[in-house]
Structure formats: C-alpha cells, structure tokens
C-alpha cells in the first residue's frame, strides 16, 4: 500500500534525486560489495554445515541467497540513484532497502549462530562469513536513515502494453523456476532457509509497492496472466526430468488446489461456511473406486471413465442437495454445524458399509485398494511417456489431466463470479434480507452454489481415486476439510490466484517439512493467526474483501473507485 500518495505525479522526487550521492547511499553500496565478496568466500571449514559453505568462489545455496539479496539491494540503490526514473516513481526504494538490510542481517546472524552451534565454537568460521555479516549490517545502517521517497498510485501510471506483459512473463518465470528450485532442495534446513529468504525478499518487495503495481498490471491483462499461469503449470513437469518424488507432490498439490477452488465457490462466492466439503470429494472417490476395474470393487458395472466422472459428480451433487435443502433455509451458523456433522457421518458410513452392518459397498476400513490406472484410447496413465525427450511419468500424466479439470473449474468460477448469479451471491453475502427484498432468490442461489460445489468436488474425487490407487475412509477426515478452508482463508477468499497460492503453500510445506512433522499443525496455527492479524483479507485480496476489512480506509475506497473506473473503461473499449 502506498501511504504517501501524491495527488499529481511525484514531482517531489526531484528533491531526493538532487541529494543523490549522500553518505548513506555510498554506505549501502559498500555493504552490497562486502556482502557479495563475503558470500563468494568460504564461510566455514566444515563442509557438512548448511549444505556446504566451505568453498571459495563456488558459493553454496545459502551463499547464493545472500548474493541474490545483494543484487536486489543494488537494484534498488540504482533505482534511488536515478537510473530508472519511471520505476523510481512507482517504487519506494528506501523502504525496500531497509527491509532487505534487515533480512540480510538477521539471516547472517542466524548463520553465524548455526555455525557456532554445529561446529562447537566460532573458531571454525571462516572470515567470509564475517565479511558478509559486516556487509549486511552496513546495508541496514546505510538504508536506515534514507528518506522514504514519495510514490504515485500505480493505477494512474500507464506504461506501454509490452512492458506490462514483460513484467507478467518475468514474474511467471520466477514462479516456475522458484518452485522447481524449492522442490529440488533435498536438505530440509536449506529449504527452510530458502523459505525465510523468500519471505524477507517478498516483504521488501511488498514494502516497495511492487506488488500493488503488479496487481494493477494483472488486472489490466487478466487473460494474459491466466494463460501464462496455465502455461507455467503446464511446463512444470518438464523441469522435473521424471522425478517421482516431486511430481507426486505436485499432483497432490493440484488435487488439493482443485478441490479448494470448488470449495471457494461455496465459501468465497456464496458466503456459505461448509465444514464437511471433503466428504463430497470422498463421495466422488468412492464412486470412482466402486465402478473401477479394481478386483475389490463391489459393483460389477464398468462404464467408461467419463461416465464414472459424471456419475460421481452427480452423486456428490445429490448429497449436496439432500444436506442443503433443509439447512440453507436457515441462517449461516446452522449450515456450518450440519456440514461438520455430515462430514463425520460420511466417514462413518463408509467405515460401516462393509457387509456386517448392511450392504457391502465400501469394504469398510479396508477400503478399495488396487484401483488400476486410467486409460484413454490406449494411453495408459501408469506408463511413462517421453515428450521431447523428457520422461513424463505416472504422476505427470495425472498432473496434466488434473490441470485440465482445474482449468474447467477455474473457468466455471470466473464465469459465475462475473454473471448475474455472481452478483446475486455478492448481495446475499452483504445483506441477505435486502437481497431477498430486491428479488434475489436467496435460497435457490445458495442451494445452487452448495450443490454446484459438491458436483465439482465429486468430479475431482473420481480422478483422485485412480491417482491414489486406494480409497479408504480415513483419507476423508475433518482435518482435510479444515485444511481446505485454511487454504482459502490464507490465500484470499473469492479469488482464484489467492486460493491457488494458499493451496500450494498448505500442501507443499508439509511435504517439505517432514522433519518437523510433529509441529506442523502448530506452525499452521501460528501462520493462520498471523495472517488473520496482519492481513485478514488473505494473501491475494479482491478489492471488495479489502473494503470489508478496512471499512474506514477512505483512501482505499478511492483506490477501488479508480480501479473500477479503469476496469469498466477497458471493457467498454474492447466491446
């Protein structure tokens, strides 16, 4: 957020650029040089510490992080020096420099402590680590007293279209290679360090106002961003060279994200709190399993998979109608309780339909194992196929298929959000009674959202059954529903990008943080509390949600108005 928006451009910057070669500027520059030099030197005699930082000129991963921070610092310093005046008007370099300095210093202090602890004493530290520490401290010191320079509201800045597109492409490339790099880190400590550096850098960039600029660009070129994001997701398997472990995680992430997107229609658009959503996914999965070619399947009818998908979705939607019809007539709290109970009833029903108490449909706690891989027109999902010489394994096949399912759900989501139905949902969220008085069929629209969400979950469930190989009741516990909700709240209710990010974080972290598995839930709890305290609208927020949480912020209200004017002007222009 820009706290210092000047009304007519930022003519005030001239005052800052005149005093450019200030003492602080050179001090920070010296810090950057020291940090780079220090990171190129050895940090420690012992090569077993922090993924090997014992080599000169051949930096280990952590040293690379520090060099990245130093280069970013240099970029903002040059920005301040007046190298890119257009960008300088958009970004507040002083705040970014301070955040980068603080990150680098905190990080170097942590490194020194780790070296001291792991090698029993600082005697084993090499001079390089101290050079880098001094460099980081200098950056912090130098940037601390730099005056914040005024920036302009990014909505009012219009650059050439190709600059915007270039920024989007660069951003997506960073996401792709960042994700590939993060997944490639086997060492848990290095992964955590990568995350903390990422957090620090993101903070710095957020402080500089980069993200509000990117958000404006993203709104201007929504289609480009969507297509680009899809392309990145599509290209990801090709960066993995057939790695089973990473593609398995990626497939888990995409199933989770797809389900969360379905739930987002219910929670984010219609505003209904559904605490048992995982049961709809489970219903689809059980349909997929019982109608599969598994030797343990209890129904001996084997329709083609596309039919199974539709049946699974319809069974889920029917369950949604059964649950929704009586409860959606009353107000919100009851729905939460009923869906919570439904989730448990579903799990216990699947547990007990084992032939001892009633029909044998699910084989009870044993579940239905050995579900064979999908096969379309002779293309078996279990085989590894080479595309352009890069092996795409079993997980990769499911990944691509689920990507298509996710794309369908995203399409449904955005179409609904921008339709008359979407407007009705907004009205219901805002004031249900008033919406009713306006002629909005509140019950009908809520039921549509609820059953529609269940339909999409059922669809995803049938694919999940084949990907998971076996379906058992304990895959569909309340905790999973809670995680889905957490992904939505963390990422940003009612947005596609936010939920995708939230789902990725919530699914990726536990996979990579297995070494702290006992504390995973604790860490999630803390993360959610922090998000709710400092950014209640989620990581990616729709403007309307922001207004909900910051109602007295008149500047924000004006910003929303500008953005809105711009959006409508754009749509009229293309029409």
């Amino acid at each position: 957020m820009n706290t210092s928006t000047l009304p007519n451009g930022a003519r005030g910057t001239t005052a800052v650029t005149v005093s450019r070669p200030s003492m602080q500027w050179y001090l920070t520059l010296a810090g950057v040089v020291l940090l780079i030099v220090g990171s190129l030197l050895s940090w420690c005699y012992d090569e077993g510490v922090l993924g090997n930082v014992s080599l000169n000129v051949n930096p280990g991963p952590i040293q690379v992080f520090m060099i990245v921070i130093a280069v970013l610092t240099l970029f903002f310093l040059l920005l301040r020096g007046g190298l890119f005046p257009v960008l300088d008007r958009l970004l507040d370099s002083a705040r970014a420099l301070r955040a980068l300095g603080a990150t680098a210093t905190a990080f170097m202090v942590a490194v020194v402590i780790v070296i001291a602890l792991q090698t029993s004493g600082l005697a084993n530290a090499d001079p390089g680590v101290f050079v880098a520490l001094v460099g980081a401290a200098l950056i912090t010191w130098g940037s601390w007293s730099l005056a914040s320079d005024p920036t302009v509201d990014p909505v009012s800045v219009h650059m050439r279209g190709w600059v915007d597109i270039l920024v989007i492409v660069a951003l997506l490339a960073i996401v792709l290679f960042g994700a590939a790099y993060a997944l490639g880190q086997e060492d848990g400590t290095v992964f955590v360090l990568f995350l903390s550096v990422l957090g620090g850098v993101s903070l710095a960039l957020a402080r500089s106002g980069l993200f509000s600029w990117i958000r404006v660009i993203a709104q201007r070129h929504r289609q480009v961003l969507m297509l680009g994001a899809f392309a990145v997701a599509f290209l990801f398997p090709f960066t993995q060279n057939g790695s089973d472990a990473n593609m398995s995680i990626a497939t888990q992430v995409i199933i989770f994200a797809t389900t969360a997107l379905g739930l987002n229609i219910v929670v984010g658009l219609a505003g209904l709190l559904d605490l048992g959503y995982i049961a709809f996914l489970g219903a689809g999965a059980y349909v997929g399993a019982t109608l599969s070619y598994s030797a343990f399947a209890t129904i001996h009818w084997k329709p083609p998979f596309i039919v199974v998908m539709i049946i699974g979705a319809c069974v889920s939607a029917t369950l949604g109608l059964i649950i929704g019809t009586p409860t959606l007539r009353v107000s919100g709290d009851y729905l939460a309780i009923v869906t919570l109970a439904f989730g448990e009833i579903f799990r216990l029903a699947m547990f007990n339909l084992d032939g001892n108490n009633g029909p044998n449909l699910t084989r009870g706690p044993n579940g239905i194992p050995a579900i064979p891989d999908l096969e379309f027109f002779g293309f078996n999902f279990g085989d590894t196929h080479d595309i352009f010489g890069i092996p795409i394994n079993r997980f990769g096949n499911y990944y691509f298929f689920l990507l298509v399912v996710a794309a369908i759900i995203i399409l449904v989501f955005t179409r609904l959000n921008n339709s008359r139905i979407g407007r009705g949902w907004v009205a219901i969220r805002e004031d249900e009674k008033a919406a009713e008085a306006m002629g909005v069929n509140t019950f009908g629209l809520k039921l549509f959202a609820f059953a529609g969400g269940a339909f999409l979950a059922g669809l995803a469930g049938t694919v999940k059954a084949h990907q998971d190989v076996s379906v058992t009741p304990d895959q569909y516990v309340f905790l999973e529903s809670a995680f889905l909700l957490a992904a939505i709240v963390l990422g940003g209710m009612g947005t596609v990008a936010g939920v995708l990010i939230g789902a990725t974080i919530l699914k990726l972290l536990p996979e990579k943080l297995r070494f702290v598995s006992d504390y995973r839930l604790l860490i999630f709890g803390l993360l959610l509390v922090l998000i709710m305290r400092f950014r209640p609208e989620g990581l990616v927020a729709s403007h309307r949600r922001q207004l909900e949480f910051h109602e007295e912020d008149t500047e924000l209200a004006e910003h929303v108005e500008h953005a809105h004017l711009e959006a409508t002007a754009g749509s009229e222009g293309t029409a």
Partner: protein
Amino acid sequence: MSALLEIKDLEVAYGKILAVKGISFTVGEGEVVCLIGTNGAGKTTTLRTISGLLRPKSGEIWFQGTRIDKVAAHEIVSLGVAHSPEGRRIFPRLTVEENLLLGAFSRNDGGIKNDLEAAYDLFPILRERAKQPAGTFSGGEQQMLAMGRAMMSRPKLLMLDEPSMGLSPLMMQRIMTTVTTLQQQGTTILLVEQNAQAALGRSNKGYVLEVGKVVLSGSGQELLHDDKVRKAYLGED
C-alpha cells in the same frame, strides 16, 4: 380506480406475539397511499408481509387479481412489487451502479440499461458517483439510491418504508417531491411514514395504525385535518 393491492384481514405474528391484528386496506392503481402510526404499530411488518419476507398467520393479500401471500419473495418482485426496506439497506461495499443493477435482478430483458439511465435522471447525483462504494454516501444519498434501486425492477407498486428517516428537512423535501414525480410517471406508491405531515399531504389515502389495527382511515387531506391525528402525530394540542 381498480384496486392494485388488496389486503384482507391480515394477521402477522412473530412467534406467539401478534404484530398485525387483522388489518384490511386497498391501494388503487396510480394512488399514493400512506400508512402512519407510532413505533410498533405494525407498519413495517405489513410491508414485509406484502413483499413476501414474512408469512401471514391468516388473511389474504391480492395483487392485480393474484393472491400473493404464499408466493416467494423473489417472485413477488417479478410480479411488480418493489420494496425499499426500512433503514434503506443498500449494499455498502458495492458501487452505486452495482446496487442499481441488483435492483433489476428479477429482470432479464434488454431494458435494464435504459432504466439505469432513468434512475440516474431521477437522481443525477447517482450518475456522478456511479462507481463509488455506496457505503461512502450520506443518509440522503443512500435513500435516493434505495429508491432508485427499487425502481430498477420496473415496479407497478413501490413500497417505501420510512424514506424520511434521519434526513434533514431539505433532503426530506427532495425525497417527497420524488414520490410525487414517480406517481406522475404512473407508479403506485405505498408509503410508510412517521412524519405524518409530509406524507399525508401527498397521499390520496391514508390509514392510521395503532398496535396492529387500523384505527382511522380517509383521504390524505381528511386525516391531515382530523383532530385525533393532529394531536397524536402532528404534535398539536
């Protein structure tokens, strides 16, 4: 004039408490009809029952020869009854234009754009601020928006629940003038007011409600000059 809306022996209860105890009245086509009464007289309850937000305990509601007391609220709007609820109930975080478009939610025809213009012509300030979140509006502006929004469903009958509540005398005058304008344009209006002076002066008919019953009725001018009304609602001795 034929009766557009007819209420027969309407009883409405909240749980065991009867809020409306058997009232009957008619609203003729093209009329402005006013319900006055103190707090708790059952005025708002009556409007909410007509628009289908509440269900009557007994009695009948007829609109254009159709019985509507068991019809769903959103269908009643489609039939041509618009309700501008008590306290305006605009959607504060939606823009003015989005609010207006929600008023036309029940419609699916091509005339919505024209009606949007008509609403802007009725209240030009709404056009100026079309893209502003409605929550940033003053009380009077919100009332204009609420009326404009109700008109967006192209109603035959517009029900206004206390449009003058909390407004400055000047703004109230503006709202009341609009009521007359709308009547001239052919909209029938059922008005609920505590401000009897302003409301009765513009009404063809008036009904005085007290604790859920109609205690007095007559033309607007008759009621305005009735001693009991003058004492109870106009504060004259």
